């Protein structure tokens, strides 16, 4: 194999080694962050047990995002009546009960 080809392969090996080092460093960092995140979640779960609120504080003034589970389905629209409908599917938890059976009843005249 000519020397210029060997030089090219050597350069590729150096670049590949650098990339491998970076990838391994990121994998180790990711593992450390994952373990730290798990420990923090366990520690912060105490706040959920105390308050009973498990929703993430992604927003405090858009109630359908702050507590989507406990907000009525129309909360997004009521906070900004002229705004676009935001997260219409994710924020809805339907009522369950006998209403549907009751409302399906029909009486002939």
């Amino acid at each position, binding site marked *: *194999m000519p020397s*210029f*080809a*060997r030089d*090219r*392969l050597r350069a*590729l090996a150096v670049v590949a080694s650098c*990339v491998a080092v*970076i*990838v391994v460093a*990121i994998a180790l960092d*990711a593992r450390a*962050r*994952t373990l*730290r*995140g*798990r420990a*923090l*979640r366990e*520690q*912060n*779960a*105490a*706040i*959920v*047990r*105390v*308050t*009973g*609120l*498990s*929703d*993430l*504080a*992604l*927003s*405090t*003034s*858009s*109630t*359908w*995002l*702050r*507590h*989507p*589970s*406990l*907000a*009525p389905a*129309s909360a997004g629209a009521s906070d900004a009546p002229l705004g676009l409908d*935001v997260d219409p*599917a*994710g*924020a*809805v*938890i339907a*009522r*369950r*009960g*006998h209403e549907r059976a009751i409302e399906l009843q029909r009486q002939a005249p």
Partner: protein
Amino acid sequence: MSPALLAYALGAMRRRAGRNVAIALGLAVVVLAFATVLFTSEGLRAMSQAYAAEAPSLTVERLVAGRASLVDVADAARIAPIPSVRSVTPRVWGYLYLAALEANVTIVSSRSVTTLEQAPLEDGDALFGSDVARALGLRAGDRVAVSVANSSGDEVPVPRFVRVRSVLDPSSALLAGDLVVVNETTARELLDVPTDRATDFVVDVFPPEESSIVSADIVDALSGTRVIDRESLGRSFELTFDARAGLLSATLVPALLALLLLAWERLTGLSDEERREIGVLKAIGWSTSDVLSARLLEAGLVAAFGSVLGLVLAYLHAFVLGAPLLAPALFGWSNVRPALVIAPATDPVELLMLLAAIVVPFAGISIVPAWRAANVDPDRLLR
């Protein structure tokens, strides 16, 4: 794969360095955008699922005219006798608009904060979420006035002083950054909730598998209520994050298509020099598959470099910098925003699928022009 082919591909890469660097950078930007969405949404999903697992078995709220209304505390006595119900707790919580912040904070009552290593809260004492405390410039021991609406008929809001018992750890900001935890008396005062009313009931069910049956019994016992179980809560978060991540990814698809179009345009127009190069290779005895292999290696190396660069940047963007380019799309409107500190929770298979969806079409379109040129008679290519 022979080393000679690899060496040739490296030489070809260097000869077309400008074009290859431009394409690799374009690829890196697209991978950065898609991978950031994946990293962030998966991190938030893992966090919300972990917290949802600690949520109460059932939450009972009352709907009046389609809106959540206050429940009657006396109704707890109608839920308590249902089999498998271990406890029923009326909970007082809600939003309080702070004019000084121009934002809502979440006031929540707690009967016991001992699990947070705190002594029981006295009237007027509060644990502040780190973001509210930072926004108001509060430290433990400070007293802050809050204007409270009063249903007693006074026209002007009444100032109420709240003492900062302590500030919750900043690491809890994504969960509790906007919370103000107080005792029940203070919560009633701040939110103007009468003593015979509460925001909702928290029902503890054991065994948890009985939740759906208990839920149906509660609806039977208390007409007009909505019962939210822990599983629905988890599904609700999952749907929300799926919808948001899907929407964001959908907006990024044109960027991917633009990159592929650019790559196609750049790669299909083989220059005279490249045609001559392929002609020389064929003339000295390279087979069509050798030419294609060299071309695929060149495209693969460019794609690998671009993808790794994009992934590294996405990792730094999402987990080290807190996704500053993405956070505004994930967060709603508010003056009190937690820092987006999330831990990696992405499944490697999902990451590989993402890379495959971007890199495979790229490698595919780079082979087509080489295959077309490699099938032409070398004599024609050299003329």
